[in-house]
């Protein structure tokens, strides 16, 4: 009797073992070329990340229709890290060792990227990260196709200072690393622009915060000393819905207190009625409303595939550029070997959907134009400002510790190079 019990136990273990290990046998085929997609399909981040998984599948299909890469079909390997940060590391390891993918496109949140970094660096993988982020990081194995702070936050702040004449800033954010770091950078940037410390109001709220009445009232009260108030919002995800609803209810118009958001795009606006938000701003490298043939084509394919009501957004463009650059780099290198592709990536150029050309820099960031858009009634943006291409900067110039650092993987072979002492601080990234 006891025997059966134990046998059963062993059986369970063994079957689980086989289930997990079976993937390990299929290896070493150079065709098809495997593209790992590491985006959450469930959990809190699924809201944003599922779209990117669909984008990747669309891009892979399009490339296959064009004949694949190096004469091979591309195959998208989709895994679901379920918005669970440790699971990101596990799935990344699985993609690289079990599925033997040649490249990974994935992640949204910074914490998930930090979770994946040690694994990617240990196994020398290749990750394309498509979301605007806080910078202060440079990994040999990651290409950051989203905006660094100087490609989104700083130009938007300049716009506030120059064009809107804002003198008092409310930095509202969700309590996690991207808002915290961005706000730190912005605080020191604003101080360098002569804004006094007491004219910067910082507030952090939890994920999914919905009770905004008090905070909105606080922001309105900031105007009591007669200075023009502006809000820089790094509020993440669906907390924005409650925030904008409360703004509208309090009758705060964009002319009184403009709000510029770094995490609100077309996708987020589709979740609310925008008629009261007209005139508030967002800063991105891409808006669906950008005019141009490539963009029109991209939107058409996307809508044909996903449905007419679906919108395109900035991280999708980042994946579009990143994927195409990778395809070109692989073609140039004639192999999918990570180091060869990495070298071939530097200087890769690809046309942006918004016009102009994105260039991959030796610090693994893109040079891209910065766009500022005003919210329209239909949930789209009117582009009211578009800069020339801005080269992404891994280490901000506005924090003293980071100002001396520089990332150059091409010539210096170092992501954290101290220009004062002319030494490489560390080869691995900090996580």
């Amino acid at each position, binding site marked *: 009797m006891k025997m059966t019990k134990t046998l059963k136990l062993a059986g369970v273990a063994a079957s689980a073992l086989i289930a997990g290990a079976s993937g390990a046998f299929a290896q070493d085929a150079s065709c098809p070329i495997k593209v790992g997609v590491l985006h959450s399909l*469930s959990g*809190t981040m*699924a*809201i944003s990340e*599922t779209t990117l998984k669909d984008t990747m599948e669309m891009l892979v299909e399009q490339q296959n229709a064009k004949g694949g890469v190096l004469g091979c079909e591309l195959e998208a390997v989709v895994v679901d890290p379920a918005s669970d940060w440790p699971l990101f590391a596990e799935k990344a390891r699985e993609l690289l060792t079990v599925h033997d993918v040649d490249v990974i496109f994935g992640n949204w949140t910074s914490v998930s990227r930090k979770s994946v970094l040690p694994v990617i660096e240990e196994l020398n993988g290749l990750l394309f990260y498509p979301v605007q982020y806080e910078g202060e990081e440079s990994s040999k194995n990651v290409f950051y196709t989203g905006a660094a702070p100087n490609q989104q936050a700083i130009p938007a702040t300049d*716009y506030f200072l*120059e*064009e*809107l*004449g804002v003198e008092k800033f409310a930095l509202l954010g969700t*309590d996690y690393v991207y808002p915290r770091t961005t706000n730190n950078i912005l605080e020191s940037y604003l101080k360098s622009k002569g804004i006094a410390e007491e004219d910067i*109001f*910082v*507030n*952090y*709220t*939890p994920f*999914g*915060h*919905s*009770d905004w*009445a*008090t*905070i909105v*009232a*606080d922001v*309105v*009260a900031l*105007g*009591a*000393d*007669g*200075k023009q108030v502006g809000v820089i919002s790094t509020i993440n995800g*669906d907390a924005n*819905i*409650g925030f904008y*609803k*409360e703004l*509208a*209810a*309090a*009758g705060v118009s*964009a*002319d*009184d207190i*403009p709000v510029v958001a770094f995490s609100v795009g077309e*996708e*987020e606006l*589709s*979740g*609310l*009625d925008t008629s009261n938000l007209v*005139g508030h*701003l967002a800063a991105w490298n891409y808006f669906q409303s950008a005019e141009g043939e490539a963009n029109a084509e991209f939107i058409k394919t996307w809508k044909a595939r996903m449905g007419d009501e679906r919108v395109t957004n900035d991280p999708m463009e980042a994946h579009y550029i990143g994927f195409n650059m990778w395809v070109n780099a692989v073609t140039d290198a004639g192999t999918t070997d990570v180091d060869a592709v990495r070298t071939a990536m530097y200087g890769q150029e690809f046309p942006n959907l918004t016009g102009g050309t994105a260039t991959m820099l030796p610090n693994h960031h893109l040079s891209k134009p910065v766009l*500022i858009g*005003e919210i329209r009634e239909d949930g789209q943006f*009117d*582009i*009211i*400002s578009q800069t020339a291409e801005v080269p992404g900067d891994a280490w901000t110039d506005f924090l003293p510790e980071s100002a001396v650092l520089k990332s150059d993987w091409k010539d210096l072979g170092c992501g954290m190079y101290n220009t004062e002492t002319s030494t490489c601080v560390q080869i691995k990234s900090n996580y």
Partner: protein
Amino acid sequence: MLRATLLVIAFCLALPAQMATAQDSPLQTLLQSQAGEVAKPGRRSVGVVIDALVAETPEGTALFLERWQNKGVFLNENDGLFYYAQKSGDGYELFDIATDAPVGTATKDELTEIRPNGGVRRVIGGALVQFQLSDPDKERRTAALDAILRSPDASQIDPLRASTEGEPDNALRALKERLANLLTARFGASTDDRITAINALSGTMDVDSRAALNQILTKSAAVAPELPQDANIARVLTVGEDISQQDAYAQLVDAGIAPERQTADTIKARLSDNIVDGRVGGIPVGQLSSEENREKAYAALAQAGTVPPLVTDETIQTAINEHAFFETYAESDAAITTAAETALSEVESRVARNQIFDVSLDAISLASIYFLAAIGLAITFGVMGVINMAHGEFIMMGAYTGYVVQQIIPDYTLSLVVALPLAFAVTFAAGVAMERLVIRWLYHRPLETLLATFGISIALQQLAKNIFGTQARPLTSPGWLDGAWVINDVVQIANIRIAIFVLALIFLGLILFVLNKTRLGLEVRAVTQNPGMAASMGINPDRINMLTFGLGSGIAGIAGVAIGLYAKVTSEMGADYIVQSFMTVVVGGVGNVWGTLAGATLIGGLQKGIEWFNPSNTLAAQTYMILFIILFIQFRPRGVVALKGRAAGD
């Protein structure tokens, strides 16, 4: 690009009659002289155009400024002229900017919409003031007043005064008078005028008056060897009390009076600059891994004159002692600043009192949301003792019902009227189904209901995701719920929150009525207290349990519609409320609707209270609130409103 240009040219050739006729009005000519700035205006540079326009005021200036401000002006790429345009069919109909007369058509590709940004719009608004102040259209006059509020200016006083006389609208006239007073307080010609205006401001509370007073009281920090006699000094700062020693010294450094203090980094940099034969100031480099040796080495270097001497605490202290630190007003007239200080302190104390009132309103609103979310649970958990972890998902189902109804019925008011009962019906049915299929088998195992309903909860959540997708869905409140009830300039509350509050009251009344005054309520209480006895009295406990559970679930559905209206509709929205709701019920006291009310009030009030003391960290407020609840339950394990006797048993 080339192809597009060719197409445009072909189009122009094919339809010469449709081409816009050339405009040569003075307005167009003036604009053409600054065409680049008109097409791409910047806040700082647009003044040139505006000044020119205002100075000459060619025909149609006012209309042009207005259209320009509202993104109504287009640049025709064919002739480089500016037009107004209106969409007609596939193309646009063009209008002359001076006369607003139709002058032809153009395609979308030929036209560029001119989009002045918010800053430029404000500048244009300022320029428009003079045209709009006495405009017959009330909206334009309001816009002019808004523009003055946004950028007050001394030059606006006279036109504003002049227009006040003839103002037909009472509200607008009051506003104009208020504005004139505001402007006089800041920019008035004589001291007496200004002081009178300032005194009038002391009775107000609005942001603009406070802004005006604060602007008058603009201060700047200054440092000098002695207090100056001629300056209007706001206050003298005592180092160590009003200003820290560090800040005081930094001020001296900024003023160029004292040398900057060396930081550890600069000392280190100087040392490494002066390494001679592996030694710095006679100390071997290898020994420089301590602060003490570094200071010695630096002192040696300073002695030799290679580096500036070290700024020590004593030198700092002496420098500070030799100077006076103070704040001066930008306004030189002391009588005005004194009057403004008095007025401002009066205003501020009134504002503070009203803020407390405002926070209390927010607290009541939050409490009513918690109450609404928890009241269904108060019935299922409180009365029946069933732990329903899927309660949050019933809230979500209600919200999605609202969303679906809005997709079918586009009228927001009507759809809300339909959605509320429908949400009740849907979740009532779901609740009854759940009770029949699952919960009734588990009445004697309360802890296991928790597990089973948790299973249902994650299944429902995922199901919602599969059906509605992961994006948040819009649930828009009808127009009459937009906006806020403005009690005064500080105290206001969004209408939707008032509606939720009313809804919560209605449900409180309804539930009290059902439980205490109806047959059903009697039977529910009977079954809750003693099912066996109730059954032998002819009550069917199965039916009662089913109905009670359905009722609790149905209310959750209605709460879902309300919560969706004020926040968001996602598949995870239920999870946000479930723990909160349980705590509301537990803190309030299980088995009692009044308890739930007390719990919701306590939790909502507490959360707002903590937030008020620590406004920059909402997360901390939630943490402290939960800690408080844990402690509270230690001392009152049965909640605020505790039942006594038999009914209180587990």
